[in-house]
Structures are given as structure tokens and as C-alpha cells.
């Protein structure tokens, strides 16, 4: 078993997958804490569907770099969703339903009608559930993951106190002179970017799990915001690393393996939390 893992670790593509997977998982968990606490989990879900639509469009247009189209589309959708969610004319969940369902439908239609590939359902399945794309990352994509994680980490360190104030109590933050629109937009953009990157790892349908499970697990047992952030990031990284290795050894799909691992971790934490509080 160990020998098998060591053998796999010798391949550069496995190393790349591990580096990118662990880093994306860390960012997703950090941003996921904010999403869960602000009751914005639905935004993560909606954006992942938008990203799927973007990917389908990029495939049809035969762009050499899909991210050039997916990134801007998802970022714009993120900003719009946050705006709709906060001004009350169109409620967040209704806005989400419109966005995500339309994006899924348009995406699938485009892929079906215009795709030149012989295996359409295979393509769609890969996009939705991730399957092997994490193992075929180029060096450039790995570097994008490294840079984006560094940016996310730096942002969380520098703006930590403002992020806490805005997340805990928007009105109070605004009344204290914090420009909350700026932080909301910044967070929306970061979430959009991480979701697009995470599509490679777990596929667009499972991204929400990557963001939400570690945050929820951490919240079961920790009482401080700082602790919750750090712990969520750590278990998410462990989950991604272990999930990728298990999926190679057991030849299971990467995305689903990571998500199920995270689910098990979450259930364990719920148990621990119950015992502690009792």
C-alpha cells in the first residue's frame, strides 16, 4: 500500500495534482467559512453552475485557454448575485435559481449541439464531476493555483479583522466606516476565482461541498473565528490530499472521493460537538 503510494508520488503529474488540489482546498475552505456564516452557501452553488455554462461556451468556441472566458463570466455572476442578494428586489434564492438553472441548461445545450467530440456524455460528466482533469494539469495551471492561493492567504491575513467585522455584523461595520461594498465585491471575486479553479479538482457539481463541509466541521467544535478559519483550512487540505491518494490507489473518481471523505470528517465532528456540549 505504502509502496504503491510512493510509486505514484514519483510521477510529476501526481505531484502537480496534489499541490494544486491541496491549495485549492485550502482557499475553498477559507472562503467557505464566510459563505456559511453569511448564509451565502447558495452563492457557491449557483456560481459553480455558471462556471459550467462558461466552460461549455469556451469548449464550443474552441478557445485555447478556457479560463479566459470562464473567469470573467463567473466573476460577473458573483458580483451580480451578491448585489441581488442584498438589495431585496429579487431575492437571493430566486436570483440563484434563475442563474444556475439557465447556466446549466445553456451549457448542456451548447455542448450537445456544437460539440465535435464523439463522447458528449463523457465530456459533460467530466465537467460536472471532475474525474480526471486534476491529473492532466499543465505546469501553467499549477502555477495559477499557487499564485491564487498565495493571494487568498495574503488577503485573509491583511484584511482579517475587517473580514471578521463585516462577516459578523455588516450594519455595525458600515456604521463604523468600513466600506463593506468593497469587501463584499472582493470576496465575491475571490470566490468566483476559486470556484473556477476548483472545477478541475472536484467538478462543478461538487464544489459547494469543498467550501461548505470544512467550515461546518470546524464550527462544530471551535469557538473562535480565527480558530475556525485555520482549522477549516487544515482539514480541507488533509481531505484533498488523502482523497486524491485514495482515489489513485482505489481507482475511484477524485472529486467524489474527496467530498465523501469531507462528509465523513463532518459527521465525526458533529458527533464530537454533541458529546462536548452534552
Amino acid at each position, binding site marked *: 500500500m505504502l509502496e504503491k503510494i510512493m510509486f505514484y508520488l514519483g510521477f510529476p503529474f501526481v505531484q502537480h495534482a496534489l499541490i494544486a488540489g491541496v491549495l485549492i482546498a485550502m482557499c475553498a475552505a477559507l472562503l467557505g467559512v464566510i459563505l456559511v*456564516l*453569511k*448564509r451565502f452557501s447558495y452563492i457557491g452553488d449557483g456560481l459553480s453552475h455558471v462556471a459550467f455554462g462558461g466552460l461549455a461556451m469556451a469548449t464550443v468556441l474552441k478557445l485555447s485557454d478556457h479560463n479566459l472566458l470562464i473567469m470573467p463570466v463567473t466573476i460577473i455572476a458573483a458580483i451580480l448575485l451578491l448585489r441581488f442578494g442584498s438589495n431585496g428586489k429579487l431575492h437571493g434564492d430566486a436570483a440563484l435559481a434563475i442563474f444556475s438553472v439557465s447556466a446549466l441548461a445553456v451549457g448542456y445545450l451548447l455542448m450537445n449541439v456544437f460539440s465535435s467530440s464523439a463522447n458528449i456524455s463523457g465530456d459533460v460528466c467530466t465537467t460536472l464531476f471532475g474525474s480526471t482533469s486534476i491529473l492532466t494539469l499543465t505546469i501553467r495551471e499549477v502555477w495559477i493555483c499557487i499564485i491564487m492561493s498565495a493571494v487568498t492567504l495574503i488577503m485573509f491575513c*491583511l*484584511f*482579517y*479583522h*475587517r473580514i*471578521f*467585522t463585516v462577516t*459578523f*455584523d455588516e*450594519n*455595525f*461595520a*458600515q*456604521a*463604523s*466606516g*468600513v466600506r463593506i461594498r468593497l469587501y463584499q465585491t472582493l470576496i465575491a471575486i475571490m470566490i468566483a476565482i476559486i470556484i473556477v479553479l476548483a472545477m478541475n479538482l472536484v467538478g462543478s457539481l461538487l464544489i459547494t461541498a469543498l467550501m461548505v463541509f470544512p467550515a461546518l466541521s*470546524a*464550527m462544530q467544535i*471551535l*469557538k*473562535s*473565528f*480565527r*480558530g*475556525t478559519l485555520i482549522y477549516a483550512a487544515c482539514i480541507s487540505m488533509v481531505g484533498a490530499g488523502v482523497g486524491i491518494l485514495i482515489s489513485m490507489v482505489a481507482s475511484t473518481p477524485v472529486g467524489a472521493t474527496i467530498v465523501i471523505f469531507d462528509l465523513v470528517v463532518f459527521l465525526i465532528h458533529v458527533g464530537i460537538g454533541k458529546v462536548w456540549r452534552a
Partner: protein
Amino acid sequence: MYIRCNNLLVGYNGAPVTGKLSFEIKEGDYLCVVGMNGAGKSTLMKTLLSLQEPIGGEISLGEGLKRFEIGYLPQQSDHQKDFPATVWEVVLSGTIGMHRGFFYKKDQKDLAMAKLQELGIAHLKGKSYRSLSGGQQQRVLLARALCATQKILLLDEPVTGLDPRAMQQLYRILDELHQKGITVIMITHDLNAISHATHVLHLDARKPFFGTQDAYYQSKQWKLFQEWEQGEASAC
């Protein structure tokens, strides 16, 4: 004069929810803002906090009161009930407006500690906010609000959901702060709150009232408010 409002109209999307309001808040006042649901109490508060723009009229600030120097105690929102945060993290966040820097400086930490001690909750410092009782949570939020201001507190329905003992405690704390020279503005549903106030603003689309506590006890609006509150109580 801390705040003077002249023919102020507040509302959403260009539609006013109140009549024209003219009132002033002086240093050392204790103002209760009352009115039925939908009379525009929360909208007025948001406007005073510069969270939204007035629709008409004007608000002027005086005596060195700056725009973001009002200590705000909002209504508790749902998402705070399971928010993982220590009391210290919450109270310290009240000082966020003091400096532009990324990290908290020593004077901010000292201030937060002083406010914890002032409100008698220093022993809760490391506790989790969500594990506290309603009364303790209100005190933590009050400490946070006091970190943001030396002068004026704005409280939005602070006793809602508190048991009678916690309610009395909160009123006592507010009286003490008021005696120390802090100006208090409180939005409230509670008839008993009026007895602590020096001034009352009764919001009503047709006949708003603003005046001293004594004048309010003589007014028609006071009768209305009592009847309405009793109606509410008997409806429950």
C-alpha cells in the same frame, strides 16, 4: 447639539415611510424612539447612521461628533446565533474605525479591555459568543458599541427577547452610562423604557411627536402607544 434633523424624510427607493421629522439631540439626552411597526423606526436609525441617504430634509452633526462616531447596537440577526467568535473578537471589532491599519494596535486592545471591565464581563473574554445568554450577548454588543464611541449610543430594540431580569439589568447599565455623560438614542417597543428617557420621538405618518418625557406623558400619542402595546400584549 449632537444631531439636528430638519424636515427629515426617510424611506426606501425614493418613497418616504415617515412624515417630515424635525428634532434635535443634545449632549446628555436620553431619547426613546417609539412607533408602530412600519412607522419607520429602523429606517430612521439607518439614516442617522449614514447607512442610507435621507430622501428629503437634512441631518447636521455638531459639537465635534463625526460621521462614524456613533456606537451602534443592532438587533441580533439570525446568523449570529451559531457564529463561532469569542467575546474578545467581537468587542475588539468595535474599535475597527479608530485606525486605518491592518492590525489592532495597543490602544485598541486597551480600550476593548476597559469596556469589558466597565460592563462587568471581563471574565467572559475567552468565552464563545454563541454560548452566552441573551442578556450577556447584549452586554457584549454594548461593549462593542462603546468601543466605537465616546459620545453617543444608538440602540435598536435592545430588550427584545430578553427575560425581565436581563431587561432590568440592561436599563440599569444604560442609566449608568447616561449618568456618565453618554447620550443614548433607543428604538423600543417597551413602555417601561420611556420612564428612563429625557426625550421621546413618536413616529407616526400623520402626527409625529417630539418633546420631553413630561410633555409626552400628556400627549395623545402616549395614549395611543399604551393602547397599542396593551393590544399587542393581549393578542399574545
